[in-house]
């Protein structure tokens, strides 16, 4: 190539690139190269579905764009904040009397503290302001926490959220009344049982509905695999009267004849088939990290034809180019290889869907509660589990030497059963009970441990990484302080 051509080639190539990216931004196409920075762990799975968060129209004013962005945050997170009895709800700060605080830290906007695509300033909990942010409002005036709390006089504001005492949003297990009420609990209850797990395990299918191995209705080729048949016969599905066709020919009526089943048979039923029967589980699964690519609020790929029409090019651009401008579809599920947490290298290809944890025929919930997790996750907390007292308790329970609910699996803490309409189901949104880790206190820890021991354990990062093998080396003083304040009569009666 002639040296004189080089600058022209560079200019032409980059201008072509610019046109391509301008088209990708305004009409359709892959925009991953335009990401200005790594997204947080919470959102990286959906980062190429830009319109999920960026809902403002093109060239909207900065204020409008920010409002739209915050509206999207609330659409997805409002429900969980409500459930967490958010200590700093937006409505509190919309009051004009709070205007003085808006300039310090505008708590009406999620983006005041959580800015995406800024990995260099993202801290724990995707917070992008300095962790002593409480100082903005609680260091002066009637909101000064040191004013009526002598215990807080010498504390610095960077310890508010890092010492196991407070969270900005979720303080369900940390508020003063709760601390006082649960003060003095033993490190370990005399008969430690996780009540909801015990209730969940105790469910039984009606014996009359149960199917035996010989009841399986499937094409000859399918039943030729004895292992699959054995697994099914010993599974909850068989116990609940769920025959092969219910999954492999899900569109058919329950009593469809074998010939018709053979015609409609599919060897590997998709996750949607599971979701057809397990709606609550599927719903919560899509809210957590494992299934968030199926979240109902994710933006659908843009329609390039519509976008072209909008700019007056409808019908002008050939179909082939229009198709070329289509957004790349977001993969239906994340793989372990895409995850940000440490994962086993041999699991990189593994797709996070129902069948990955619940073997399709065995539907083994015990395996799904521990071994399935450890087959992908490869961090110190997971590895240490198998040497922990929680694991030993689980082994004892599985061996039948202890009652249901006495063992502690990964799912016990991270996907605990929940009660909805008097029905116990497993919450498949692992995030619901994960961070900040004090979220687990009420739903799990307190069933077996006292509040003080729980808070100390959860605040001890080393103990967490050892999966609670040992005793906490950290002590959270909040219970003592709350008791002292209650005894001195300084505490407000409404807590």
């Amino acid at each position, binding site marked *: 190539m002639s*040296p*004189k051509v*080089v*600058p*022209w080639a*560079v*200019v032409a*190539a*980059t*201008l072509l*690139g*610019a046109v391509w*990216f*301008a088209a990708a*931004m*305004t009409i359709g196409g892959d925009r*991953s*190269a*335009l*990401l*200005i*920075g*790594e997204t947080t762990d919470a959102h990286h799975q959906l980062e190429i579905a*830009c319109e999920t968060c*960026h809902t403002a129209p*093109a*060239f909207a004013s*900065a204020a409008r*764009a920010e409002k739209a962005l915050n509206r999207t945050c609330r659409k997805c997170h409002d429900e969980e904040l409500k459930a967490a009895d958010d200590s700093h709800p937006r409505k509190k700060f919309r009051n004009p009397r709070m205007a003085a605080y808006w300039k310090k*830290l505008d708590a009406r906007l999620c983006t005041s503290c959580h*800015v995406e*695509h*800024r990995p*260099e*300033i993202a801290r724990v909990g995707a917070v992008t*302001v*300095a*962790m*002593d*942010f409480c*100082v*903005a409002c609680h260091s002066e005036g009637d909101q000064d926490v040191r004013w009526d709390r002598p215990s807080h006089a010498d504390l610095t*504001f*960077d310890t508010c959220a890092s010492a196991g005492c407070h969270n900005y949003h979720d303080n369900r297990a940390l508020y003063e009344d709760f601390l006082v009420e649960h003060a003095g609990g033993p490190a370990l209850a005399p008969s430690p049982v996780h009540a909801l797990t015990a209730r969940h395990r105790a469910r039984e299918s009606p014996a009359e509905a149960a199917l035996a191995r010989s009841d399986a209705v499937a094409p000859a080729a399918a039943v030729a695999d004895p292992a699959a048949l054995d697994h099914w016969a010993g599974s909850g599905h068989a116990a609940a009267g769920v025959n092969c066709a219910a999954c492999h020919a899900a569109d058919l009526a329950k009593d469809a004849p074998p010939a018709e089943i053979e015609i409609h048979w599919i060897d590997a039923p998709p996750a949607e088939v599971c979701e057809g029967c397990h709606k609550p589980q599927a719903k919560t699964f899509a809210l957590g990290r494992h299934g968030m690519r199926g979240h109902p609020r994710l933006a659908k790929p843009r329609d390039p034809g519509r976008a072209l029409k909008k700019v007056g090019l409808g019908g002008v651009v050939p179909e082939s180019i229009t198709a070329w401008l289509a957004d790349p579809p977001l993969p239906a599920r994340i793989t372990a290889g895409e995850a940000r947490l440490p994962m086993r290298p041999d699991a990189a290809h593994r797709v996070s869907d129902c069948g990955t944890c619940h073997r399709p025929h065995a539907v083994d919930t015990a395996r799904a509660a521990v071994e399935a997790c450890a087959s992908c996750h490869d961090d110190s907390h997971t590895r240490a589990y198998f040497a922990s007292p929680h694991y030993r308790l689980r082994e004892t329970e599985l061996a039948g030497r202890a009652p249901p609910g006495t063992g502690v699996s990964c799912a016990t803490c991270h996907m605990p059963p929940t009660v909805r309409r008097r029905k116990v189901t497993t919450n498949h949104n692992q995030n619901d009970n994960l961070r900040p880790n004090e979220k687990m206190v009420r739903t799990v820890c307190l069933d077996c441990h006292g509040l003080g021991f729980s808070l100390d354990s959860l605040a001890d990062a080393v103990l967490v990484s050892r999966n609670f093998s040992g005793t906490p080396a950290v002590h959270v003083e909040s219970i003592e302080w709350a008791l002292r304040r209650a005894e001195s009569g300084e505490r407000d009666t409404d807590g």
Partner: protein
Amino acid sequence: MPMLTFTEEILLLLGDEEGMFLPVEEHAFECALAGAVLMDLAFAYRIDTDPEALLTIDPTPTGNPMLDRVLEKIAARAGTTDTRTWVGVLSREDAAILREQALASLVERGILEKRDERFLWAFGTVRYPTIDDGAERAIGARIEEVLSDDIPHPRDVALISLVDACEILPDLFPDRDVASFGPRIALLRRMDLIGREVAGTIAEIQRTVVREARARAARFQKLLLILSACGGLAVAATLLSPPIPLADRFGPGLLESLWYDRVWKQWSGYLLLGLGIAGLGIAVAVKKRLVARIAGSHGWRLFHIALGIACVLVLFAHTGFRFGANMNTALMGFFVAALLSGALAGAAIGGTPRLRKMGVRRTGRHNRALIGLHAIAICPLPALLIVHVLTVYLY
């Protein structure tokens, strides 16, 4: 055909085989042109000099438009300024016109051919390849004879002085030990070979041209070197130093505001864009000789480098020297490459005399390569900036 003027002869000597000009420092080149035209006027018995003043002794036009224009200018202010001042004035104000006039004359005489070649439209390069090398060879032969032990012609002595001022002897005689010519050149300067009437004038012009050229060269190159080194060090800091951490204390901080406040970012972004456009505009204007008549090209070149340094500072304010991700990394990469290559080119040009003293030859080729790299690094910036600005306003 009339005899070639000194201005034309020196231009012929400065042209290389490709029709480009030898890498003569511009200040020396301009001073040589100014000296050449004064010598032409002296040999034509139109001006005389003494240590205090340069005087017009005969204002009658010579018939050569190039000389007559300068003569008219000198006549208008004769007696009020000395030779050194006139060399300075003519080199600053008239060098570009003298050069164009002399080249046009050489084209008209059929010695050179004008070829206008474009580089990315704005960066036009005009070449003057030789189509009749007879005159050029004759001048070269004259110089070679003078540098040997032959008795020189007064015009050749004057020409040697100009060649010496331009420091192009190493380029004219690449195979010879040029240092060995030093005593001979010094002797020629002392010889009273020029007619009595003009001897003093030519000698004064020679001294002034050499002195002025070297003084201006030293000033300009020193400044160029210092500014370029500052720019280069600042860019190196962006590449080598770890990202500056933000204070982990809540509250308004200057760096936080600069790097993360939308309004500040917008201001610094547009300022950076403005500085970039200004720098590019100056480069184009200097290259196309649009601004040389306003303040001379040295000032503009130094200003171009100063804009580069300002770009580094504003880039720090805009990005904190973080390269970002994806498209932003590419934009930052090319921006830093443009700044670094520009600083290196400036430092190389500024450091040319030192490099030559150290025995480095063909510095011009290296300088041109660095300027080429600078231009290549700038090429993708407009497109990347368009995408960058679009991402900001669309998302």
